């Protein structure tokens, strides 16, 4: 194989037997290639020296993995994995971590990621909190008679009380969602929520043939949470959240 002079971008690892690279443009519109010995392969593309557009690069990373996962099990790499050369990919990644990668591929085979996110109807939730929490209601009443500047710390205190109530609900609602859906999945990962009105962000690893059963569970959950929580149910995606492994690069023979 001819060795490109530049660095290579790595999208992920697949069980390569009988597979070809997906026909999709990678980063910088470079074709995606499959590198490696027969059993394990890495999806890569050559990086040019042109400046990289981050939004486009992220988009390409995503597109390649989505495409590849249509007909193969993929262990996605986290965005930003760049290696020196095809040789480095083979020795530093595929050979050095053959066992870990094979095990991951085995675990993820014929499974997909389905993601369930819950978002509180904020107004509904806040009304509920004011009504059920006397301390919040009192402080809120009092603050209405004070100027915004004068009440700065009281306002923080009020927000703190509200945030604590939101946290309680978050914990309880997350437990309930997991209890409902975990039995229908192979595994679950609770992901950090970043928005104040987020209830939960749950990634489930689900067998392809049981997606319909899982969807039924989501419908039930949706009924249970009613108007309080709006659900977003997304997938199937490559099992991004279940491919977590930190690998040492091994002996850097290529460096």
């Amino acid at each position: 194989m001819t060795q490109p002079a530049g660095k290579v971008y790595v999208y992920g690892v697949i069980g390569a037997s009988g597979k070809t690279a997906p026909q999709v443009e990678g980063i910088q519109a470079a074709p995606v290639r499959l590198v490696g010995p027969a059993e394990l392969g890495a999806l890569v593309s050559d990086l040019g020296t042109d400046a990289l557009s981050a939004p486009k690069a992220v988009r390409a990373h995503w597109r390649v993995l989505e495409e590849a996962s249509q007909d193969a099990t993929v262990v996605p790499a986290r965005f930003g994995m760049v290696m020196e050369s095809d040789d480095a990919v083979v020795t530093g990644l595929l050979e050095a971590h053959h066992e870990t990668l094979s095990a991951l591929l085995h675990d993820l085979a014929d499974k997909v990621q389905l993601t369930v996110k819950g978002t509180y109807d904020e107004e509904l939730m806040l009304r509920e909190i004011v009504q059920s929490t006397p301390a919040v209601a009192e402080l809120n009443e009092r603050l209405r008679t004070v100027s915004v500047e004068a009440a700065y710390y009281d306002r923080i205190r009020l927000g703190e009380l509200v945030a604590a109530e939101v946290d309680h609900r978050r914990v309880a609602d997350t437990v309930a969602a997991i209890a409902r859906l975990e039995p229908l999945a192979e595994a679950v990962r609770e992901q950090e929520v970043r928005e104040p009105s987020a209830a939960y962000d749950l990634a489930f690893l689900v067998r392809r043939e049981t997606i319909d059963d899982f969807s039924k569970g989501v419908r039930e959950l949706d009924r249970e949470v009613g108007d309080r929580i709006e659900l977003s149910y997304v997938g199937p995606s490559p099992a991004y959240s279940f491919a977590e492994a930190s690998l040492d690069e091994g002996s850097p023979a290529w460096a």
Partner: protein
Amino acid sequence: MAVATTPRGYIERPRPSGLADVIEVILDKGLVIDAFVRVSLIGIEILTIDARIVIASVDTYLRFAEAVNRLDIVQDTDSQGLPELMESITEGGAKSKVKGLAEGAKEAVTGDDDDDDDKSQSRSRSRSSSRSRSRSGSSKSS
């Protein structure tokens, strides 16, 4: 069309993911090689840092306080509906009610030029483009 806001109470099946749905896991999860050669080209480092910004607590508290206060205002004056009220408040320079900085970073990535995918994103993109622009300006200076 089956989008995020299906009428209450009926989710038939998962909706295909757009980039916006998975941007966080793409940046956060997946295989990592220690000491891999980082993409050092401008943009990527900033992007991954931005996406990890967690909303400062005090900021969150103040926004909750503001939101709770606003509830009462709405109850007292029927003349102005909640949407209009929020519009005028956010236009006044205050932060909008629930979107955090992480959301801004997300929009910076997914709200890019081409539109070969995520239909679900177009709605929120048009709504928030001006906001994310002004926020990205101010977040650099802070």
